[in-house]
């Protein structure tokens, strides 16, 4: 997809959201409604300008190098695994998830030095444990790793 077309789609999408926001804002009575209405209308205007700009450049320019498929795959991979990581945290605990997540992502992205791949996350997790659990005493979700070992 050429870049101006992507921009046009995004601009129209944002415009739609602004309309939805304005409709929501009409529910707000009195002074609490002034700014929401003003901002959404202004944003709608801006998104229309943006849409116009991209439509014009769509006509002007013919073709442009689109994004390299390889880097698109890497982006999707990284985003997907990050989401999976956050989904997993409440179930298997933060530190357990981190110990799996970092080496898994790094190796699929092409990192190959095995010793660092396993050692660095371990050191990282220990440092985080000291800072967050021991010093700052944050109550993180319970750890599957510790439950398996039988500490908790």
């Amino acid at each position: 997809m050429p870049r101006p077309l992507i921009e046009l789609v995004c601009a129209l999408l944002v415009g739609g959201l602004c309309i939805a926001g304005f409709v929501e804002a009409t529910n707000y009575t009195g002074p609490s409604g002034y700014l929401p209405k003003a901002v959404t209308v202004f944003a709608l205007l801006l998104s229309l300008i943006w849409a116009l700009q991209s439509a014009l450049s769509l006509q002007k320019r013919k073709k442009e190098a689109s994004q390299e498929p390889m880097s698109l795959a890497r982006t999707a991979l990284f985003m997907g695994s990050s989401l999976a990581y956050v989904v997993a945290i409440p179930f298997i605990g933060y530190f357990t998830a981190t110990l799996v997540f970092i080496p898994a992502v790094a190796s699929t992205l092409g990192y190959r030095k095995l010793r660092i791949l396993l050692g660095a996350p371990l050191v990282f997790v220990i440092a985080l444990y000291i800072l967050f659990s021991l010093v700052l005493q944050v109550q993180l979700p319970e750890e599957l790793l510790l439950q398996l070992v039988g500490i908790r």
Partner: protein
Amino acid sequence: MDILNHIMAALPLIFSLEVIIAMILGTAVGITVGALPGLSATMGIAVLIPLTFTMEPLVALGMVAGIYNGAMYGGSIPAILLRIPGTPAGIATVFDGYPMAQKGQAPLALKVSLASSAIGSAVSAVALLLLAPPLAAIALKFGPADYFWLALFGMTTIAVLLSNNPAKGLLSTCLGLVVGMVGIDAMTGAERFTFGSMDLLSGINIIVLLTGLFAIPPAIDLAVKRLSEQKEAPIDKKEDRIRWKPFIPVWIKSSIMGVVIGIIPALGGNVAAVLAWNEQRRSDPDNDQYGKGEPKGVAAPECANNADTAATLIPALTLGIPGSAVAAVILGALLVHGLRPGPQLFRDDPEIVFGFMLTMFVTAILMFVIGRFGARAFVHVLKAPTTLLAPMIICLAVVGIYSIHNSMFEVWLMLFFGLLGYGMERLDIPTAPAVLAVILGPMAEESLRRALLISGGSFDYLVKSWISWIIIAMIAMTLIVPLWKRLRRLQPSRGDQE
């Protein structure tokens, strides 16, 4: 000289071994907490308060002082190296700090930031020690109308950040304004943009937005870089000698701005940093260099946000009015030790108050020493394999956000803003205006409505105080002067054509 007597009496107290160890530990913890995305001085101090229950008051307060000063500086380290501001106050440091690192001047940028931070903190501590009672009076002079103008003044910074397409920059501003409106409207109790979610009722925390917009996109960029494309980040070794002389006027101006903004309640280091950067850029004749890696653009915000630290404590200690979330938490720490802030504090426990103020000064120096050693280590972050660094940034952002309110919802919200921020970057929409709008938008709206509520709807109230007029003049200067300059530049060229 009553004050000097108190200072002399407090001096021996803070040079006991325990207090010194506490200050060193506090400063180190503070720099760490500040450097990690999501964690801030407020959170660091709040969670450490229970640990200080059993300590002597000055040991506890020395640690608090160290954390406060350290965290303000710490925020600049990832801002420079990875363009991830560690705290909201570090956002202005990104503007020039990251371009410097890209040019291979990371060590220089870190040095400038450290020296400026230490100087800002020291100036602020001196102001606190010597001028606290008279300066506290300024805090009370500010009414709702003045806050409104001040917020607008801060918003003029956005004009600079609009990039080459104003429509996109303003759209980003609108995003920030909407995000700032989410939650219960403080003036009427109405729920706005909450969509029935309990988690959105108290609004969206600025740190959640900041971490999402600024920490996630760089992580994605690092992950996407292929190993073969990776080259060692260039690091200039020659930059060892820096000429500090040109920085002196920057420091003087920025520390004064930081101190004044610190005294005014409800404004924090983030506002100070943004305004100082804006003012520095405005006043420098060579202002095209700003945003492209100008060292003075690092010095100004870093000096100002650290000059804010001790100054925030001026109304907090003398009047019991904490001007920011951090100051409120510090008052909590004082309370735990039976020290009730307010006018009676200076009368009843002068050694401890003056001791605490002195530790603010001493930790400024300690910060410089610890930072000098640390800076060598920090730069190594740039040499780390990016495929390992990227997931680590995600992990840090997640745990940092989770620990603010023990809430998974905010972690998801942060990720959402992360993806949004990544999308915005790909579409060349600047993200900084959104963050500034979240900081200043609610302040402008609330104080305008509060002012109109007090006046019964008459707009005269907005221009009644002399403070308002000063700020209005400053707004006019920032907006009109560049415009006028541009016109003057245009006119002769038009003349040539004729």
